[in-house]
């Protein structure tokens, strides 16, 4: 298929439809409203249903209903709306329902701003809702990768019976880039014999539930969930790295920020600096092992984010104290410049910080 020029938010919708998603429940919020608008236009054409819910809370619970009923379903929002969805996300994880949740992040806390941000890293990777649960979290850096991850993400959700989150920012939602819709590698997916479709008088009732009132039952359920998360850790890590075996400084960045880092690295290379990059594509499971390949004489790691340094915790866990971990970030919807990153890298190389 030929390349088409698409806005990020619309490309998400197109990818979801290509992946077989036929149900979308959402609520308007900037900067992701083009996605529900696209779904309202396009889903009916393929026999699907778009429904604008009365709130983000209702939207995620509609997802819970539709996912339990066996459908490929998604919702999207931006930071404050994703906060409202946390209750539903916890229930989806607890009841082990597959679905895709898109967060096009904006500045926070509170109402914050509508400009691009990566301020929901903790919320996405550490929980956000109650309980010991995990989401598979993808952080695409360009629109092509976002499309590919959405198509694969639906399969991953079905394979593990787990919610999957796409974590983008306002920039990737609003920008346009060429995209190609490739036919993805198909995974072997289990039958959804647990879904509520009516017994038809042929089987015992199926129950979608996250309540286990006896502590020993709930513990057993949690042990099963943890075993599943361990399997995801072993099988589903995605990372891109660049020249880390030989680097004097390694930058770690994800999503659109990683592109700014790449521009900085290209300029630094022209000046003779040896700078590597580790770009986590899955924020959970986190690519901890990749950091073991870094040049042992590396002078430091520079984490670059559009927040106050939320990924720094994971980078510190990954390097196990072997390298100093520095941070450069902008907040509130401000975007780091390559020039500022370059300055910081030079200071690390020069032993100034």
């Amino acid at each position, binding site marked *: 298929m030929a390349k088409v020029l698409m806005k990020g938010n619309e490309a998400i919708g197109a990818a979801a439809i290509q992946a077989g998603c036929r149900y979308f429940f959402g609520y308007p919020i900037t900067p992701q409203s083009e996605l529900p608008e696209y779904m309202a236009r396009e889903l009916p054409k393929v026999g699907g249903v778009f429904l604008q819910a009365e709130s983000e809370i209702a*939207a995620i619970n509609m997802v819970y209903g539709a996912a339990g009923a066996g459908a490929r379903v998604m919702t999207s929002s931006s930071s404050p709306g994703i906060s409202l969805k946390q209750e539903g996300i916890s229930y989806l994880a607890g009841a082990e329902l597959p679905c895709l949740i898109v967060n096009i992040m904006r500045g926070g806390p509170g109402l914050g701003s509508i400009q691009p941000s990566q301020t929901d890293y903790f919320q996405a990777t550490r929980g956000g809702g109650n309980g010991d649960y995990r989401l598979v979290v993808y952080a695409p850096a360009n629109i092509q990768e976002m499309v590919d991850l959405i198509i694969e993400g639906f399969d991953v959700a079905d394979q593990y019976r787990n919610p999957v989150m796409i974590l983008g920012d306002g920039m990737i939602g609003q920008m346009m880039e060429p995209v190609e819709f490739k036919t993805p590698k198909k995974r072997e997916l289990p039958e959804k014999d647990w879904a509520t479709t009516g017994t038809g008088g042929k089987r015992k009732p199926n129950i979608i539930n996250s309540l286990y009132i006896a502590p020993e039952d709930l513990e057993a359920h949690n042990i099963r969930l943890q075993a599943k998360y361990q399997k995801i850790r072993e099988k589903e890590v995605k990372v891109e790295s660049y020249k880390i075996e030989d680097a004097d400084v390694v930058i770690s960045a994800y999503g659109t920020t990683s592109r700014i880092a790449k521009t900085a690295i290209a300029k630094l290379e022209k000046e003779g600096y040896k700078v590597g990059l580790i770009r986590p594509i899955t924020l959970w499971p986190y690519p901890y092992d990749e950091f073991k390949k870094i040049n042992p004489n590396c002078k430091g790691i520079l984490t670059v984010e559009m927040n106050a340094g939320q990924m720094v915790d994971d980078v510190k866990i990954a390097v196990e104290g072997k390298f100093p971990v520095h941070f450069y970030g902008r907040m509130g919807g401000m975007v780091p410049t390559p020039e500022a990153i370059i300055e910081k890298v030079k200071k690390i190389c020069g032993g100034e910080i």
Partner: protein
Amino acid sequence: MTIVFERTRGLTDVETHYCPGCTHGIIHRLVGEAMVELGVLEKAIGVAPVGCSVFAYNYFNCDMHEAAHGRAPAVATGIKRVHPDKFVFTYQGDGDLASIGMAEIVHAAHRGERISTIFVNNAIYGMTGGQMAPTTLVGQKATTAPGGRSEEHCGRPIRISEMLATIHGAKFVERVAVNTPANIRKAKKAIIECFKVQLEGKGFGIVEVLSTCPTNWGMTAPEAMKWLEDNMIPYYPLGNLKRPEEAE
């Protein structure tokens, strides 16, 4: 030998956790019987709430979802949109539906979702131990209204059925009680009629069932039945508020 009464197929063979004298058991049976009589049990998908009937998913003999507190109508919406040919119902209490889930029930009605809601109103939070509900009567004691509900402090109890009846998408609204055999028969008739509204694709339907809570009201079961009749029915009058032919 003639069988005059038996356990309905609409319910599983699980012993319920409800308190002695609680009318949830009666209401469960009516819902189960209605599904069997309408021949929809095999295509039914129910949604249980958070509250006393939180374990309803163990009692109804059909596919079930357990929803987050108040969200049952949204969950039911998701299910019904995926399976428009199935029979989808929610079973919710007054804390769940009239307090935390007010937005979800109003908007499910407003969209005219083809779902049916059984709304059990016992004027109190039962599961959490007798706290005040939006439906608690003025002067009625609750653990969070130890001197009785004060109108000045908390307003008057909300009449859900009257409110929902004003919404265009709500096509069947009736309030019933299960305090006497005659009222129980009327309740079953209303439930069957409500379910038919969904099956005929006409829109949203709700049956509000006035129910007792002897445990948290601090009464015996007969006292509770009498209290319902003397106090609840005057404030929450029984009867049909809306039928499809009147809805237009």
